[in-house]
């Protein structure tokens, strides 16, 4: 089979389209272009959101959380965690549940006690005030309760004491020294940070949750490091990576992405029907040529390939144009931040576009495959046409 010749004929037949065949060819090309572009950009926005979310989570939250049921051997655990080569830094935390009150406003919060020297890691997230010696309150919580640096607030611990007059919770007034913002809901709306010594002093040594917040050099190795930590720390330690903690969220996003992909794939399928129509017109238009080429020795399967190639070429050009325009569209969206979203809901003010190689490969290969598939029927018809019938009807 002379592929070069078939390619030459196919190209020329597409380029030399006239009248309604030209119009249908253009519509088929446009259909593939737009559908490929729609799929790629939508997938790009979805992937971009996932990536941005991941980056946000990784830059503000610990990559691994180690929880310990008891405080025994706390320092030993810290040494063992810090000895792993993948660990960038780690610090212990104690976590209590408490009620934060200011004037008539009351909120349930998680109080995280961090060593004074480790507080420095939170400095990057301060939006108001300073680290100081007081409480650090999340921005969302501060907004709801109208808290500002320097304000006095009450912390109420449910772990109180029994008295002859009944159960009395512990209550103490603290000064707010700063407001922090990480961009994640649980930290900005539900967390209060304070020094570990003060937390232990106020809440006591019971009912708390001990643990470590671990940051890695490469957060994407979290699962490997998690396994290493599990081996190193034994059964008492509960080790959870950022992947475990956010699994439901990313699973939901992925499921949504897959769903949308299949819905959008229908667009590509429908647009490839245009190729079928165009090729049927083409077969009708080129009957005489088919007869002549067959007379001069072109085989039936070569006629078949001649029309399949036309479908592939048209679909391929549409696909490539769609791909290039998607890249351009992606660049514009990223450059001019065109997809804007409410920052308080989505943790970001715009969604970037990120093209994942797998999305590109599946979409482009799928479009090409569908173009080929849609050309099979007209190509079959062309190859089965009798030369004598054509010549007799001319």
């Amino acid at each position, binding site marked *: 089979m002379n592929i070069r010749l078939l390619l030459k004929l196919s190209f020329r037949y597409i380029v030399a389209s006239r009248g309604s065949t030209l119009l249908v060819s253009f519509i088929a090309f446009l259909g593939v272009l737009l559908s490929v572009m729609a799929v790629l950009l939508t997938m790009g926005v979805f992937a971009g959101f996932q990536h941005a979310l991941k980056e946000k989570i990784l830059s503000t939250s610990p990559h691994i959380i180690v929880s310990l049921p008891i405080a025994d051997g706390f320092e030993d655990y810290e040494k063992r965690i810090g000895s792993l080569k993948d660990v960038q830094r780690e610090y212990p935390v104690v976590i209590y549940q408490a009620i934060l009150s200011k004037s008539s406003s009351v909120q349930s919060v998680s109080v995280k006690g961090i060593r004074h020297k480790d507080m420095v890691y939170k400095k990057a997230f301060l939006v108001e005030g300073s680290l100081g010696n007081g409480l650090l309150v999340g921005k969302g919580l501060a907004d709801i309760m109208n808290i500002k640096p320097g304000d006095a607030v009450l912390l109420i611990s449910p772990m109180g004491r029994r008295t002859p007059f009944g159960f009395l919770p512990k209550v103490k007034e603290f000064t707010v020294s700063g407001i922090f913002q990480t961009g994640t809901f649980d930290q900005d709306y539900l967390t209060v940070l304070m020094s570990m010594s003060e937390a232990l002093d106020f809440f006591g040594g019971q009912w708390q949750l001990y643990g470590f917040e671990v940051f890695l050099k490469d957060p994407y190795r979290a699962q490997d490091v998690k396994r290493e930590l599990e081996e190193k720390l034994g059964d008492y330690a509960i080790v959870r990576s950022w992947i475990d903690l956010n699994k439901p969220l990313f699973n939901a996003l992925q499921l949504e992405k897959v769903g949308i992909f299949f819905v959008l794939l229908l667009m590509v399928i429908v647009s490839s029907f245009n190729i079928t129509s165009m090729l049927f017109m083409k077969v009708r238009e080129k009957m005489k040529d088919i007869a002549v080429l067959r007379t001069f*020795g072109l*085989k039936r399967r070569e006629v078949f390939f001649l029309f399949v190639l036309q479908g592939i070429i048209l679909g391929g050009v549409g696909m490539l144009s769609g791909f290039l325009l998607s890249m351009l569209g992606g660049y514009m969206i990223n450059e001019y931040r065109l997809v804007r979203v409410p920052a308080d809901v989505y943790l970001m003010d715009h969604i970037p576009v990120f093209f994942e190689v797998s999305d590109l490969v599946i979409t482009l290969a799928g479009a090409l495959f569908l173009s080929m598939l849609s050309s099979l029927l007209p190509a079959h018809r062309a190859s089965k046409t009798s030369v004598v019938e054509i010549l007799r009807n001319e």
Partner: protein
Amino acid sequence: MSEAIKTQDLWKVYPNGTKALRGVNISVKEGEFCGLMGPSGSGKSTLLHIMAGLDHPTDGKVWVLGEEIDKMSEDQLAEFRMRNIAFVFQFYYLLEDFNVLENLLIVGQMANVKDSQKKAMELLEFLRLSDRVKHKPSQLSGGEQQRVALGRALMLEPKVILADEPTGNLDLEEAIKIFELFRTLNRDKKITLLVATHNVELSKFFGRVLKLRDGLIES
């Protein structure tokens, strides 16, 4: 001299019952310039199509250059045609999207003819079409188009040329020019020619004339 084309009791009955050929027996020797004459509907085109392997007989046998072609598969026929037989049509059937040179080159490339560009140019010069190389078929006269069609047929270096009313669309002057070319090809290149025509004025070019009437050979 051996036979270039031979048929034995060739029948062709169409599905609607029309008997186009009714036991045709003919023999054309290699190097012969033979005419196939007869009125419209006498079965000339059907006979040529069967000889070219484009159509199958209902019954009977066909040999071309010693090979029985009625037993061949579609692919074998296509290959056989490409190597041995060229067909010239009444309506030229040039590829409208391609220029004169490309019309020749496409056939040359199909048959993997060596130096097809050089050969095509030589043929166009021989056919006095050197100044029409880049023209599209629609820009040529009928006679020129038929000469291009002949050039296309010659690209395959065929041993046999079958022509179905090749001058049916041309005036006598142009028709004579085409037949002179046929005669040159027959004489110089020893190509066997079987040409169907109903124009008696052209019969003088033939070495022998086969007359077909109602699907039967008369002489």
